[in-house]
């Protein structure tokens, strides 16, 4: 170490140093002179490392510390990209599980879980007849944790539908759809539908009897679409056949076959999730903009209502 440093020092001026050597034979001194400053610098680093919270890197990442002063509590939420969906403070009773049932949040969390597990499943899945079924078996038999992932994906999907319904029930019971939240309720309904469609499109993907017939039954209803289905009222009159009606559009064929598999795959993995996340964003946004969650707000009396009128 030391020598190297010294050599570095020397190299630029070789003749000069040679002369110098002739003058003062005491090399050690000069080596010390050159090396010591470096050691000093090293010590500084150590000191800095000891209270890292002051370091530039740390400060750049964590804007404020995590103590329990009101300011920092607020900042903790506001400065965090994920948490700032929340306001800094909420209605004191709104944090009670009793009031919200937490169903909205859980639904979102499940959506998150589904996205992740779904992405992993895509690594081993080919949406083509015959292959698809084998891939599921492959997942179960060969892929480490493949079975677990698939189960999680399916059960999370079912659970999500339940939670979404319960969320709707709660919102209704607390009348939270009322002014100013009418629109958000509408968005919510759309999300509900999308959730069910998402689950439905996923049903066909294993390409087994269960999914096949579930989808067949499901899509057969579309045959009867008034005007647009070849079995619906006024459908035939409008020249609807199995090859140009709504159902065909859904399945990409007159029967549930390779095309249907591919279509439901793409709806399931790309289209619907995208649409859903857009509406999700709107939903959350509106929750904030419509004055955070509705309640629990103080009860209004009928007697007061009269005043409200006239």
């Amino acid at each position, binding site marked *: 170490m030391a020598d190297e440093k010294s050599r570095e020092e020397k190299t630029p001026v070789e003749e000069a140093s040679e002369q110098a050597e002739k003058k003062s034979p005491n090399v050690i001194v000069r080596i010390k002179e050159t090396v010591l400053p470096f050691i000093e610098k090293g010590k500084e680093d150590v000191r800095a490392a000891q209270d890292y919270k002051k370091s530039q890197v740390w400060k750049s990442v964590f804007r404020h510390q995590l103590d*329990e002063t009101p300011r920092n509590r607020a900042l903790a939420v506001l400065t965090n990209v994920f948490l700032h969906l929340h306001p800094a403070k909420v209605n004191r009773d709104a944090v009670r599980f009793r009031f919200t049932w937490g169903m909205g949040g859980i639904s979102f969390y499940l959506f998150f879980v589904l996205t992740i597990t779904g992405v*992993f499943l895509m*690594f081993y899945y080919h949406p083509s007849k015959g292959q698809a079924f084998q891939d599921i078996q*492959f997942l179960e038999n*060969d892929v*480490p*944790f493949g079975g677990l*992932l698939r189960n999680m994906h399916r059960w999370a999907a079912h659970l999500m539908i339940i939670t979404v319904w319960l969320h709707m029930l709660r919102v209704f019971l607390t009348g939270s759809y009322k002014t100013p939240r009418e629109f958000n309720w509408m968005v919510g309904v759309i999300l509900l539908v999308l959730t069910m469609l998402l689950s439905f499109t996923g049903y066909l993907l294993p390409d087994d009897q269960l999914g096949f017939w579930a989808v067949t039954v499901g899509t057969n209803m579309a045959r009867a679409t008034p005007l647009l289905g070849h079995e619906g009222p006024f459908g035939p009159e409008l020249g609807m056949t199995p090859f140009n009606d709504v159902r065909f559009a859904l399945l990409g064929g007159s029967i549930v076959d390779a095309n249907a598999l591919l279509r439901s795959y793409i709806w399931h993995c790309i289209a619907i999730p995208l649409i859903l996340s857009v509406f999700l964003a709107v939903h959350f946004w509106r929750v904030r903009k419509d004055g955070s969650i509705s309640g629990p707000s103080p009860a209004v009396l009928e007697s007061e209502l009269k005043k409200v009128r006239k």
Partner: protein
Amino acid sequence: MADTTSQSETNNEDREAAKIRRRKFTFACIFAFLGANFLMTLRFFFPRTLFEPKTTFRIGYPGDFPFGVDTRFQQKFRIWVVRNTEGIFVIYAKCTHLGCIPDWVESEGKFKCPCHGSGYDQEGVNFEGPAPRPMDRAKVELDAQGQIVVDTSVLYQCPPGSECQFNRSGAFLQV
């Protein structure tokens, strides 16, 4: 994480301490869980079985191969069968530089790699270009019927400097 404003009793400190401990434990668990999940996903990317083509195959009887380089199996198995005075051996068609497939140039009697121009003589020995060593040779042996069995999962190398495996039994067939 409870509010710290209202506490004056004596046993508050250790209650706090306990709370802290629990909090620590909780987060330890949660992060451990996430960590484990991460490992699981890593493992998830290495399935237990594959469905890749076989690496051992029969290419016919020694009599089928005249002296010189035989490119019959380049398309199917990515090998050349070479016969010379020493016998029959199989060159695995993979440039030792960066793994392209060289071409057999009949007119110059050499293998020429299209990627960076490594050249190999007709025994697969490199004599020009960046290739570090001769092309590897696949394992050959005769089965019970006297057919040649090639196994490209076993390759013999001849790196400069260290000993050359081309003279090992299995690297070539004496005929």
